[in-house]
């Protein structure tokens, strides 16, 4: 493995693959906080040059976190299809990039290719891709999954209705949900982040959302994003859950800090497939986000892009219905400004898609980051172009429970309209049937949450 390069009259010698991977990253405050980032642009470029010439075998043969110490590493290793890997092991990272961007790489080719890739290889190629590279490559890959209904079709942009409430007030949650539906948002999932992490509370939210889904025959699925063990208790207690949720980390240690491991996820997987209310094969909702491993001091000095990619390696074991990277939630110590958030959003989406995951992005920021809503609108459009499966819908982008800003119901309608994207077919048919959409455009009835309140009254 060549770890040395001479560039612009300077010689750079990197200690190991871990250092090359970290320093080849675009600038991220999280890598700086961890003390592993390139010290300047030149060093960064030196690392990218070195990385580009490494082979995929180099990457596989030099594990960043040894499998014997980490179950996520073991899982990623076990998932490699040796025949496919054999075929590509001599490719350099540069060649991988060029293949992905070439006309030769058609969807079936990429589907086959991914079987031989590890999460680290995916992270490596990401580091030498520009923003537009990431959009171009991702736009070729569509990942369709089915819970109650199918999402991820080419030309579709779904939305998660995220009707959170600062005290889990059931009617308050329902009010924001009605607003979401009135804008044609909710085809990905109706998913609530609860304040109160008890089985009883989770059950009451699941029950309400299920009632709305049933009484309006909405082609979607519900989920409450409590800790997986809380959801399991609620489901065992008869709560109607289509999907089960968990946040993932890219290392065993990070997952420990989330209170999970593969064994627990396997149990939850079994439960949701036997006791869940959905029909289809894909029953998981995962969330990830760059920086979470560092924040729990579980990063093993590995950079945050690579760790994020490893989350996807773990996620794919469970054939999730949706995966969402909450890109700018964690704060400026991991992603300082809008430039870093935009980059991370494009990276995560691409890395997830390349590993066969149904990627959505929570395009978001907190108020102590150097970013504003215009930056989020930019990223939403970029991701729409990249073929993101879904975006997050929050009333006016302002989540009054999680205290951060994401994208709004309006934004999802706008991205669809500007880029000619549609809701998922079943959901669009439902919107049309209820008079909220016509030929892919919102009707005059759209945007009025009391539309649903009114009908409840008449139906009663």
């Amino acid at each position, binding site marked *: 493995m060549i770890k040395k390069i001479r560039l612009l009259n300077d010689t750079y010698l990197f200690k190991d693959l871990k250092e090359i991977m970290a320093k080849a990253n675009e600038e991220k405050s999280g890598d700086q906080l961890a003390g592993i980032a390139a010290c300047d642009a030149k060093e960064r470029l030196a690392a990218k040059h070195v990385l580009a010439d490494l082979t995929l075998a180099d990457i596989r043969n030099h594990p960043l976190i040894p499998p014997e110490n980490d179950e996520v590493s073991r899982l990623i290793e076990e998932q490699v299809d040796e025949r496919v890997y054999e075929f590509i092991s001599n490719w350099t990272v540069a060649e991988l990039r060029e293949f992905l961007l070439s006309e030769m790489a058609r969807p079936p080719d990429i589907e086959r290719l991914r079987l031989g890739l590890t999460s680290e290889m995916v992270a490596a190629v990401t580091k030498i891709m520009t923003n537009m590279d990431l959009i171009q490559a991702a736009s070729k890959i569509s990942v369709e999954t089915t819970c109650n209904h199918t999402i991820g079709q080419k030309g579709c942009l779904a939305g998660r209705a995220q009707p959170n409430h600062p005290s889990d007030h059931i009617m308050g949650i*329902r009010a*924001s949900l009605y607003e979401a539906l009135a804008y044609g948002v909710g085809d990905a999932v109706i998913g609530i982040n609860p304040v109160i992490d008890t089985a009883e509370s989770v059950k009451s939210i699941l029950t309400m959302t299920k009632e709305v889904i049933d009484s309006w025959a909405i082609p979607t699925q519900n989920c409450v994003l409590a800790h997986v063990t809380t959801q399991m208790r609620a489901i065992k207690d008869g709560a109607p859950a289509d999907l089960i949720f968990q946040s993932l980390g890219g290392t065993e240690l990070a997952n420990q800090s989330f209170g999970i491991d593969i064994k627990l996820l396997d149990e939850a997987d079994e439960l949701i497939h036997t006791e869940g209310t959905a029909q289809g094969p894909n029953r998981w909702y995962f969330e990830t986000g760059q920086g979470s491993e560092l924040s729990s001091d579980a990063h093993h000095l590995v950079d945050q892009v690579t760790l994020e990619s490893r989350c996807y390696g773990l996620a794919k074991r469970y054939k999730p219905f949706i995966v969402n990277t909450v890109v700018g939630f964690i704060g400026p110590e991991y992603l300082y400004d809008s430039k870093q958030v935009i980059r991370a959003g494009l990276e995560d989406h691409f890395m997830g898609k390349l590993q066969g995951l149904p990627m959505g992005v929570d395009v978001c920021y907190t108020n102590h980051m150097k970013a504003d809503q215009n930056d989020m609108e930019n990223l939403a459009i970029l991701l729409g172009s990249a073929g993101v499966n879904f975006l997050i819908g929050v*009333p006016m982008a302002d989540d009054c429970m999680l205290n*951060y800003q994401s994208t*709004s119901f309006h934004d999802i309608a706008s991205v669809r309209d500007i880029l000619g994207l549609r809701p998922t077919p079943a959901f669009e048919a439902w919107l049309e049937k209820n008079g909220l959409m016509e030929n892919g455009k919102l009707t005059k009835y759209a945007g009025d*949450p*009391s*539309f649903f*309140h009114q009908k409840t009254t008449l139906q009663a």
Partner: protein
Amino acid sequence: MFEKEPLKAPNMFGTKNKRTLIDGVNKAGIEEMLRTTPARIAVGRTGTRPKTKAILQFQLDHAAAIDAVSGEVDVSYLEEFDLFSVDTCFETKEEYLKRPDKGRKLTDEAVKTIKARCEYRPQVQIVVSDGLSASAIDTNLENVLPALYDSLKVNNLSAGTPFFVKGGRVACMDHIGEVLQPEVLVLLIGERPGLVSANSMSAYICYRPRFGVQESNRNVISNIHPGGTPAVEAGAHIGTLLKKMIKQKTSGVALAF
């Protein structure tokens, strides 16, 4: 009799003048929905975009949040309560945001100052910090602190010398705990501002704070602001919590209620 009938939902969200509203098919329904949530619903649209007022209001709230992060605490509040000020190790605001570790450690100067000016090994040590919202302190300190003092008196607890930490993070409690060795430490700190309130404060409380304390060893009362938990009641409640901690000699998840 009718006044006593509980409303189905507290009407705490209904009267905000900041809302721009639409005329829906069911006006009563819209009003009712607004009563149940502070979320920005029923804002209307023009094409796929929000109405102008809704956008401008959103931007105004964001501006207030940004100001809360970048602002400084009004010194007259600190003087009113006799709080002297010490620093943590951050140099610039950017560094404060990027390097939380710097906000967890007091400067050598600060350590010297608190050693000199504060009672050593007090039963209760009260510390105030701007954290991520200076305006949280400006808004809540005058209500939370005297109510907290009352609750100490009622519960027969004694407090050491309170002070202000500029640019603190929650875990600065650990460093202060090492230096002053209080039995319990209360940190009143500005929360990361949201759009609903840029002035929200949290009270973090820890029994015998020291380096290496886990997050789960601390108790916290968050969301203290005029639209959330009233500052006076939060302050009044802290004494009860402290009493429990001292009796049980623990805090955080291990504390029994």
